């Protein structure tokens, strides 16, 4: 017998730890909240948009935090600009064959749209009153460019939420490479967590009741969809299911992500008075915690056991 299982152990782990988990988490919430707020902006009534516009407050700060996390995760953080500029030839660094390169650009592009919408939210909340800025923000969200701006912003957000999964798929670690559902899982989880944060941000006002009801309904749809995608994902891992589904990571997946992060919030959506007025708050917090631990399990589980982890 060969004393070493050379085939599996010869692969190295990239040693991606907390910075990447938190980056994937905040990027998911940034994208999810932006998409939800944009859909609400495009389809909603004026009164309801007063609530959904708060979702725009999340994108920009979270993208900035995400960018910072990405930089400090590098072993040579002072060289982060090499992601965007190829200094040996003084040309932009853009490489379609690697999701990491596209992701770096997507973060910047989404950051721009998130900044526009952040400004718009401040304008709507009367925190910014400079006429030029008001005119600019309104033109991009209520004027003739609203649709183009929001649809392009949503596309950038969708890419930001999914490329992290494509990044994991484009690798040789079996637990990451075995199932193409990781991007879908991260997207749906980002949407549900983003909506949960928006629920927490919405003040209790009569005119926002209908908006809250619909936001919670959207969150319920996402939680249900996430449950389906998650179970399919684990099944689609085949013989590598144990990398996320057993041991410590399995316990976190089944108890924290599925149990506390999806099933309990679903029960609370079904029985909205379970904890009185706090039901929506508790349910949203659980969804957010579940979203974090989903990434914890999917990022760390498949790396564990490999050289360098």
């Amino acid at each position, binding site marked *: 017998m060969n004393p070493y299982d050379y*085939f599996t152990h010869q692969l*190295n782990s990239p040693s991606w730890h907390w910075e990447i988990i938190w980056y994937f988490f905040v990027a998911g919430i940034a994208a999810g909240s932006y998409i939800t707020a944009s859909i609400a902006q495009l389809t909603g*009534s004026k009164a309801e948009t007063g609530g959904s516009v708060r979702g725009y407050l999340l994108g920009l700060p979270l993208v900035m935090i995400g960018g910072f996390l990405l930089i400090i995760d590098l*072993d040579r953080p002072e*060289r982060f600009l090499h992601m965007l500029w*190829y200094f040996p030839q003084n040309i932009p660094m853009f490489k379609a064959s690697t999701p990491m390169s596209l992701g770096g650009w997507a973060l910047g592009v989404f950051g721009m749209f998130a900044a526009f919408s952040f400004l718009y939210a401040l304008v709507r909340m009367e925190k910014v009153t400079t006429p030029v800025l008001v005119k600019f923000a309104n033109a991009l969200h209520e004027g003739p460019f609203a649709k183009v701006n929001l649809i392009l912003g949503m596309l950038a957000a*969708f890419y930001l939420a999914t490329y992290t999964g*494509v990044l994991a798929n484009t690798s040789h670690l079996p637990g990451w490479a075995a199932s193409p559902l990781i991007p879908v899982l991260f997207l749906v989880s980002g949407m549900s967590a983003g909506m949960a944060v928006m629920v927490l941000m919405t003040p209790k006002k009569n005119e926002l009741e209908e908006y809250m009801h619909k936001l919670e309904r959207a969150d319920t749809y996402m939680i249900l969809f996430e449950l389906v995608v998650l179970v399919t994902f684990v099944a689609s891992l085949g013989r590598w299911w144990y990398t996320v589904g057993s041991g410590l990571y399995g316990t976190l997946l089944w108890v924290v992500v599925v149990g506390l992060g999806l099933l309990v919030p679903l029960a609370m959506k079904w029985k909205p008075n379970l904890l009185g007025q706090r039901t929506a708050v508790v349910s949203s917090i659980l969804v957010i915690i579940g979203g974090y631990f989903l990434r914890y399990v999917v990022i760390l589980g498949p790396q564990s056991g490999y050289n360098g982890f």
Partner: protein
Amino acid sequence: MAERVGMLIDTSTCIGCKACGVACKEWNELPMAPEDKVEFKGLSYDNQGHLSDTNWRHVKFIEQFNEDRSDSRWLFLSDSCKHCQQAGCMEVCPTNAIIRTEFDTVFIDHDTCIGCRYCVTGCPFGVIQVSDIKGTAQKCTLCYDRLQVGEQPACAQACPTDCIEFGEVDSLMKLAEGREKLLKSQGYDNVRIYGKSDILGGLNVFYLLLDKPDVYGLPENPQLPQKNMMKSYTFSIAGMVATGVLALLAFRSRRMSHKADADQDQDKAV
């Protein structure tokens, strides 16, 4: 462009002396592994265990025994970067820090590398690791500095049995095919060349193996990591459509309220 150079590793003549590993360490001034990464490997004479940032060459010891240990077979494989024609590390590197040299070898530009560690996951052979000391990705350069002055790599020069043959890849392949025939005629039925064009477009550092690749811990059919990428993007698009539709469905009656708003505004205007 200079000729395409590489190495033939003939495992039938390797004696596991590890002179190649020592020469590699010396020439490239590779430090010993940090204390926390040194481990005793009581099951094997293999005291390195793995290619790493400090071990660019590793002699694998495949020690096979039957149940009562009355019969045994030792196989050795002097392992390193294969300098693949389709190099996964190079494809995924987001900064173009991994480049192909004029000798057709794969080289890491340490002034450009940012230490993102994505190349680590792109290599199907577990060759690359990022150095804790330098903060950049590390692997065999095929002694690029020696090639530039017309010398052969240090490992090839140090090998006492010529198990590591350095030279032009096409000539080495002919040599390997000749040895394969010879070994087959001597009864080594499982002998084979690993690294022809069917493996990642061809490996510049390729192997004459005495048994199947998985016995040596080599993947039977390694692929570029990009083989998953398009499927992954396709599923992403499906996911985008599904979540977009679900969100729209949840907010669907808002369009009605929006219309009501518009009607109300119109009424007021009238």
